[in-house]
């Protein structure tokens, strides 16, 4: 044994990586060049690389070299299987192993092939697929298709099929070994077409046409093998898609676009694969991914690359037509393809036409769409990995192992979810596209398996919601709900009720939501094996319902109970726990417990960071909400810092970056509180635009009205009025439109116009609406009070101003971490100081202005315009005699 030394390896490893990425000539010149500096190093690399030939010759660690199988593994040779005796293994595939065998009684001298179903696949789906191949084959009797001779189950319970034993060469090798010309190649291909057309006539689609499944015997006869994933048309609608459930990846080189994207499989799928085969046979090159080495490259090619047309005149056109991306543009049938080839062979005009201009244009758009799909196609494969586990789950379920099934369904969901989540940090725009693809994929992979489809739809819906697309969320939720209702599967329905109730709450359908939640919570209690996480989700949803019903105390109790369940289930290191804390904090906030809310949000954020989920959309939501809480507490500077972090995690705060409307609204609010109306207008405008894109009318209104207010505040009255008109139009469309919103805008409009009396009256009326004078509402009015006070002062009503502003300070103190650092306290104090000065009480004004300056410096930061105003006032008052 030759052992490389560790430190030596450190030097050689990256060089080997490089060498392995190079072509032979590139590598030669690279090595020669390097040899000038370190001959010894190059010698060692050459020595390692020199093993390549021997390695592939010996099949070192190489899968599928039959000789090795025979020598390595305990042989079944000589074992009787039914009427046959096994001779030697001839292959191994995803479905199981294939053996050469002969009849034990010697009645028939030839060899047969016996195909065993892999034990891992025994169970409903595996056996179904296996019998399926038998059924498919039994329908077929064609010279060019390997016959099914017998089928059975071995003494040990292992199902098997007995097939014609074909001694032959792969069609592509046969062509090159025999140096066939185009006419001969076309004749062989004609036999393939005849076989496939026969299968189609019997409603069987092969779906896995590729050279290794097409052998040519010594006498030049084509034999089509392996109907393992064939699809039976017509009768197939009521069963899961066997190919996918079986966990078998498609063969990327020969797959049609619809197989990659999960669209329906038809006979046109086989037409495409045949087109690829013909292309390869004619050119020796792959049409969409020449030279591709990875599956991802193949998938990208299938979806994106238009094959270079072959310079073979009409024959090239025929191949192109078979390779069209949309199934509808290909030959409608294999027979049509065969006919056109026959016309070509007879030198008649062919039916296929070169690309028209309109096709090219349409293609441009399609290509753009598909460019997006590629990331997702790779994702198909990742999901494929999940499916393998899923298949185990199906088996586990067969064995009545419910616990394993449940755990793993949750695992599959989580994996799906985390995969999507992981995309959000770098590129939020692709998140939406990934979800779109995930949705399509879900149809393809799990379309018929409601156990997976329904929760996944709900799950996907929630993800859409998280990125702000609540419209799609609602659509998916409704679909999941109608499927579950139709299936009448109670446990799925109950589990779905709670997330669905969330959607109903968003839509303002509170009664309906309540019915759902009560039904689910009662139903879930009766389930034998309770899933604490599901129960917790329901309680938290109930909390949100109470929040909407303005019963904040009940909301807090339910949320706390939900959190406790998660802690009991020990799932505190999870996204779900962080999301639950986020909800809990919002409920606390609604109940006026701002400080506790902030602490809970901080815990949620720290928790996400500690489990490495700091870049997820959940984190963005938590940071955004934290900014909101801090903002409400008057901690504008800290709020901005939190918001800035969130925006940075989203991938930068540039104009072109997608930003969640809520985040933009918060940014606007913070700018407004800091006395920066122009900046506020900018953020609110972005919020409205983003909300528009998502079809979120509430947020559109908040954005527009915020923008109008900011514009008025910046004395950009004309612009403000235009935006306000727009906002009022939108307000009329909202189900929850409140007269208060109109009133607020009118107050600001008056402010902008410099009509202090009118705006004072309007703000006063707002206070009336809010129950201030009836002493119903004692918190949360500080901002309105401060505004009313400022306008009262400007209307020469200093005493009224003082009264309002002092109440504002009291209220703002309640909702602050510390009075000395709340920007709202500071702003109200600034008004008080001005009112005191107006009344001639300079000493008191000076003291209050000092407090205002201190609070604003902390709360807003030393450079905020309002802080500067306070500084200015302090300076003026210092220069004024008592």
């Amino acid at each position, binding site marked *: 044994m030759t052992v490389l030394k560790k430190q030596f390896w450190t*030097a050689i490893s990256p060089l080997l990586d490089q060498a392995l990425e190079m072509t032979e000539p590139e590598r030669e010149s690279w090595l020669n060049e390097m040899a000038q500096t370190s001959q010894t190093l190059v010698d060692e690399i050459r020595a390692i690389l020199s*093993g390549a030939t021997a390695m592939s010759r010996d099949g070192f660690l190489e899968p599928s070299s039959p000789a090795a199988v025979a020598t390595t*593994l305990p042989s079944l040779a000589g074992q009787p299987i039914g009427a046959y005796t096994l001779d030697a293994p001839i292959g191994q595939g995803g479905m199981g192993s294939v053996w050469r065998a002969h009849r034990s009684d010697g009645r028939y001298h030839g060899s047969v092939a016996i195909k065993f179903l892999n034990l891992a696949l025994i169970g409903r789906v595996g056996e179904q697929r296996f019998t399926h191949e038998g059924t498919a084959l039994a329908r077929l009797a064609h010279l060019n298709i390997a016959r099914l001779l017998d089928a059975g189950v071995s003494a040990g319970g292992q199902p098997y099929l007995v097939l014609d034993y074909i001694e032959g060469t792969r069609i592509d090798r046969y062509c090159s070994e025999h140096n066939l010309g185009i006419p001969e190649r076309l004749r062989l291909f004609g036999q393939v077409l005849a076989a496939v057309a026969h299968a189609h006539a019997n409603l069987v689609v092969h779906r896995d046409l590729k050279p290794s499944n097409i052998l040519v015997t010594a006498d030049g006869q084509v034999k089509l093998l392996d109907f393992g994933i064939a699809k039976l048309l017509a009768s197939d609608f009521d069963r899961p898609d066997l190919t996918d459930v079986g966990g078998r990846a498609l063969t990327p080189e020969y797959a049609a676009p619809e197989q990659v994207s999960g669209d329906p499989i038809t006979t046109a799928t086989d037409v495409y694969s045949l087109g690829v085969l013909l292309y390869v046979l004619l050119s020796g090159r792959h049409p969409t991914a020449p030279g591709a080495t990875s599956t991802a490259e193949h998938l990208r090619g299938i979806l994106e690359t238009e094959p270079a047309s072959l310079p073979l005149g009409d024959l090239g056109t025929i191949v192109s037509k078979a390779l069209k991306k949309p199934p509808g543009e290909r030959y409608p049938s294999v027979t049509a393809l065969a006919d056109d080839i026959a016309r070509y062979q007879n030198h008649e005009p062919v039916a296929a036409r070169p690309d028209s201009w309109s096709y090219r244009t349409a293609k441009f758009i399609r290509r753009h769409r598909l460019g997006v799909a590629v990331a997702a196609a790779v994702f198909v494969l990742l999901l494929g990995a999940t499916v393998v586990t899923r298949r185990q789950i199906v088996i586990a379920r067969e064995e009545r192992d419910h616990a394993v099934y449940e755990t793993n369904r949750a695992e599959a969901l989580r994996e799906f979810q985390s995969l999507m989540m992981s995309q959000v940090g770098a590129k939020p725009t692709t998140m939406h596209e990934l979800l779109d693809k995930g949705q399509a994929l879900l149809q393809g992979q799990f379309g018929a398996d409601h156990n997976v489809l329904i929760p996944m739809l709900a799950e996907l819906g929630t993800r859409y919601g998280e990125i702000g697309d609540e419209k799609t969320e609602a659509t998916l939720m409704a679909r999941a709900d109608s499927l579950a209702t139709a299936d009448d599967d109670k446990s799925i329905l109950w589990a779905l009720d709670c997330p669905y109730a969330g959607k109903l709450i968003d839509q303002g359908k509170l009664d309906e939501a309540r019915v759902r939640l009560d039904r689910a919570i009662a139903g879930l209690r009766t389930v034998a094996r309770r899933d604490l996480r599901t129960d917790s989700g329901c309680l938290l949803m109930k909390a949100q319902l109470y929040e909407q019903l303005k019963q904040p105390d009940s909301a807090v109790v339910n949320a706390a109970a939900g959190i406790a369940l998660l802690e009991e289930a020990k799932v505190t290191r999870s996204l779900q726990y962080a999301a639950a804390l986020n909800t809990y904090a919002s409920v606390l906030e609604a109940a006026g417990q701002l400080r506790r809310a902030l602490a809970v949000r901080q815990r949620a954020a720290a928790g996400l960071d500690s489990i490495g989920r700091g870049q997820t959309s959940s984190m963005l939501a938590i940071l955004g909400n934290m900014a909101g809480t801090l903002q409400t507490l008057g901690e504008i500077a800290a709020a901005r810092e939190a918001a800035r972090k969130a925006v940075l995690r989203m991938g930068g705060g540039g104009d072109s970056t997608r930003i969640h409307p809520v985040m933009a609204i918060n940014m606007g609010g913070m700018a407004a509180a800091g006395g920066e109306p122009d900046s506020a207008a900018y953020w609110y405008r972005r919020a409205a635009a983003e909300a528009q894109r998502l079809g979120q009318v509430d947020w559109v209104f908040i954005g527009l009205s915020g923008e109008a207010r900011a514009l008025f505040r910046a004395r950009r009255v004309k612009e403000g009025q235009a935006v306000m008109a727009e906002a009022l139009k939108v307000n009329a469309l909202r189900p929850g439109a409140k007269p208060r919103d109109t009133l607020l805008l009118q107050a600001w409009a008056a402010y902008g116009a410099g009509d202090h009396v009118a705006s004072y009256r309007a703000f006063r009326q707002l206070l009336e609406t809010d129950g201030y004078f009836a002493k119903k509402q004692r918190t949360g009015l500080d901002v309105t009070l401060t505004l009313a006070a400022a306008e009262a002062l400007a209307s020469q009503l200093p005493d009224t101003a003082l009264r309002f502003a002092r109440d504002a300070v009291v209220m703002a103190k309640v909702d602050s971490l510390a009075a000395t650092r709340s920007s709202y306290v500071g702003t109200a104090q600034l008004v008080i100081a001005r009112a005191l000065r107006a009344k001639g009480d300079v000493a008191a004004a000076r003291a209050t202005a000092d407090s205002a300056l201190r609070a604003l410096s902390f709360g807003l930061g030393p450079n905020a315009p309002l802080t500067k105003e306070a500084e200015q006032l302090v300076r003026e008052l210092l220069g004024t005699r008592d």
Partner: protein
Amino acid sequence: MNEQLDRLIQDADRGDVAAAEALFTSLYRELHELAERHLRKSSPELTLGTTTLVHEAYLTVAGRSSASFPDRARFFAYASRAMRGLIIDYLRQRRAKKRGGEFQITQVSDDVVASAGPPETDLGLLGDALEELRALDGSLAELVDLHFFGGFSFVEIAALRGVSDRTIQRDWRKARLVLHRTLNGSEVARSGSINLESLLPEA
């Protein structure tokens, strides 16, 4: 069991030899029991996929606890290594006993038609070579365990590791080349004429 396993994986990852030992013993037992169970249930002509065993071991372990379970990627890596031990031991035993009632272990994976290795006698040597490789480059050795002994496809491994399958394929070629060289030696090395230390680049 589960939390314990989780901790063992973490400790083993940190280079705790005792933890690694305990981890392998535990996983080995797990895999062995599963294989035996299949054996009892089925006929002698059983063909068992290693991926199946490893996945099943994972499901069993994961199913035992309701809460979080160990990092899947790490679990599969260690389980594949334990699988290697199981395969090699099994082949040794089989040679010693040569009797019926044995089970056959093959690799089954989605996109690789896999079922072969070097001749039986070499498997032990391959194991040794792999341990040498582990000292050199843990990730490469782990790849061999996952793919060759665990039966995981490149696509699956790429997904587990969060890298492209192209990278995995390149690493696989690299691992094969290095193992091949370790097992076969080279003219240069065999002649003992070169001190590897002297090959280090002049830094």
